[in-house]
C-alpha cells in the first residue's frame, strides 16, 4: 500500500514539475526552462548512486528515512509560498 501511495505521489510530482515551470516562466524563455528541467531529470542516476551508497553504509531503512527527510526539507520551504499565492484572491 505504501508503494502504491509513493507511485501516486510520484505521478503527481511528474505532472506538476512541468506544469509549474510552464506556468511560471515567460514565453521567450519557456523552452530554456524546460531544457533545464530535462537536465535536472537527467541527474536521476546520481541520486540513485547516492541512495545506493547510503544504503550500503547505513542500511536501506535509514537511507530511505534520510532521503524522505531531505526531500521534505527542500520541498516544504518551496511549496509553502506557492500554496499561499494560490489562496490569495
Amino acid at each position, binding site marked *: 500500500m505504501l508503494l502504491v501511495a509513493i507511485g501516486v505521489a510520484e505521478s503527481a510530482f511528474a505532472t506538476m514539475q512541468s506544469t509549474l515551470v510552464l506556468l511560471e516562466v515567460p*514565453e521567450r524563455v*519557456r*523552452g530554456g526552462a524546460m531544457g533545464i528541467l*530535462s537536465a535536472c*531529470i*537527467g541527474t536521476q542516476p546520481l541520486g540513485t548512486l547516492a541512495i545506493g551508497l547510503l544504503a550500503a553504509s547505513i542500511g536501506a531503512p535509514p537511507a530511505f528515512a534520510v532521503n524522505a527527510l531531505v526531500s521534505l526539507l527542500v520541498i516544504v520551504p518551496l511549496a509553502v509560498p506557492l500554496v499561499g499565492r494560490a489562496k490569495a484572491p
Partner: protein
Amino acid sequence: MDLVALGWLALQFTGSPFMVGVAAFARAATLMVVGPFTGIVADRVPRGRILLVAPAVGMATALALTAIFWSGRGGYGALVALEIVFGLVWALDFPARRTALYTLLGAGRVGQAVSLETVSMQIAKMLGPLAAGLCLAQAGPAAGFAVMALVYGGGLAAYEPASRSARRPGHRHVAFRRDQQADRPGARLADSDRAHGAAGDGGDELAWSRSRPRAGCPCP
C-alpha cells in the same frame, strides 16, 4: 525499450555489471549536459520542426542499430554511442514538446495536457520493457531495434500532418509573436521573423502557437 536492450546487451558484451551502469549513465549524462542547450534551441527554432526532426533522428538511430545488430557487427562501443544519440533526441524533444503543449492549449489546460502526456509515458514505460523482453527473447536485438524504429516512425507520422496543415496558406497565427512582444518589448518581432523565416517556412512555428488568429484568418 532501448533501456532494457541496452542493459541486457551491455551485460552480454562485457559481462560486467559496472559497464551496464556506465552505459546507462552515458545516456542519462547526455540529458544533464545538453538539456539546457536544447531548451534554448526550443526557444529559437520552430517547435513544430523540432517535433519532426527528433523522431526522425530517433528512427534513423534505431534503424542504424537494427542494421548493425542484424549484420552481426554490434558491439559495446557502437551501442553506447547510439544510445547517446537517443539521449540527445530525448533532450531535444522534451522541451519542444512540453512548450508546444502550452502554446497549443494555454495556461488553463496545460496541466491536463501534461497529466495526459505523463500517463502516456507511464504506459509506454510499462509496455516498452515487455516488448523489448519479448523481442530479445524471441528474435534478438535487431528485431527489438526494428520495433523501436517503427514506434519512432509512428510518432513522426502523427506529428507530420499537423506540421503540413500549418504550412497551408491562410493558417498563419500570430499569437506566438504577440506573446514574445509582450515579454520583451522592442525588437522581439524582428527577432522572431529572423529566427523563424517569416517569408515562407514560418508556418510550422506558428502551428504550435496559441489560438488568437490574425484578422481575416479563416481558422476557428
